[in-house]
């Protein structure tokens, strides 16, 4: 590998941007395709599909064996609200290799006893992001679960502005209608607001906190695995 290709890969990873290293196994030639360059690449479809899968793998293009090293930033899940559903969600999300953080300014809820081993941040979302919780980006999922607009709304706004790949909010259709009105009033477009999954989770008839957690994670996986080239906005 050329040192400049390795340097480019490392720089993209440090910046939490995806990149794919395309290696021709026969000739040994290599090139780095950055996420933003995929759409215009001759192998756009293949690269977009492999990036969505998140897995490195072999491919054959016009009879030549290629190896695609897929480097996608680790996906983070920021849960807003140290509530009962969150307690069920945390271990399941960890099992899916998501980097989990829970934000809740209410110290009565956000206790290490209720969330063993989880990165707990007892701050308001606006205080947390960019500080105790790294700034949100496209490789973040945000689930707002407090039912309290004072806490959920700022987190949802930050998630929409950061173009997080998944934004979900707990609450009934009525609650969500009120939320849509509030977000619209502060300038979010209908398209942007439409990206919020609400009521949160896949419609699987979930009842218990653990079932709701499953429905949320199912929706996150679905969003994560959708081809990114199609999702490129």
């Amino acid at each position, binding site marked *: *590998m*050329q*040192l400049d290709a*390795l*340097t480019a*890969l*490392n720089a993209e*990873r440090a910046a939490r941007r995806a990149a794919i290293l395309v*290696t021709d*196994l026969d000739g*040994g030639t290599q090139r780095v395709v950055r996420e933003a360059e995929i759409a215009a690449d001759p192998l756009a479809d293949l690269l977009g599909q492999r990036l969505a899968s998140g*897995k*490195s*793998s*072999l491919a054959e293009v016009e009879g030549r064996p290629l*190896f695609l*090293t*897929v*480097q996608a930033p680790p996906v983070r899940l920021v849960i807003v609200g140290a509530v009962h559903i969150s307690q069920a969600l945390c271990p399941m999300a960890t099992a899916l290799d998501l980097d989990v953080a829970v934000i809740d300014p209410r110290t009565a809820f956000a206790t290490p006893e209720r969330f063993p081993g989880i990165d707990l941040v007892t701050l308001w979302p606006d205080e947390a992001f960019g500080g105790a919780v790294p700034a949100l980006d496209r490789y973040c999922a945000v689930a707002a679960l407090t039912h309290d607009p004072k806490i959920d709304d700022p987190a949802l706004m930050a998630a929409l502005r950061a173009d997080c790949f998944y934004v979900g909010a707990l609450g009934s259709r009525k609650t969500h209608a009120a939320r849509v009105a509030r977000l619209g009033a502060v300038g979010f477009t209908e398209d942007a607001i439409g990206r919020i999954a609400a009521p949160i989770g896949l419609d699987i008839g979930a009842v218990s906190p653990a079932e709701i957690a499953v429905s949320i994670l199912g929706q996150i996986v679905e969003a994560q695995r959708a081809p990114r080239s199609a999702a490129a906005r």
Partner: protein
Amino acid sequence: MLSTETDILSTAEAWRRAGRGVALATVIETWGSAPRPVGSHLVVDADGNFLGSVSGGCVEGAVITEGMEAIADGRARVVAFGVADETAWRVGLSCGGRIRVYVEPVT
């Protein structure tokens, strides 16, 4: 502490920048119960110092040797290991899996 892929690629760059001969090994294909997934890396320098894992230990020695040879001759190669391989008796995967590894010098 377990080294992550991040550590390994960053180390490869740092070692190369420090003027050391460096090779990178990448698992490109697995069959059966191979212990390390496709895409796993191992970095090795000309003295045999290494970081990372391509097989959980079974064939690391052979991959490190291949890496040192790649540093010496400047050529990339694909090497295969597995129970069906003649070399299996020496460096086979005890788990019964098979792997192919791409070993390339960093130039």
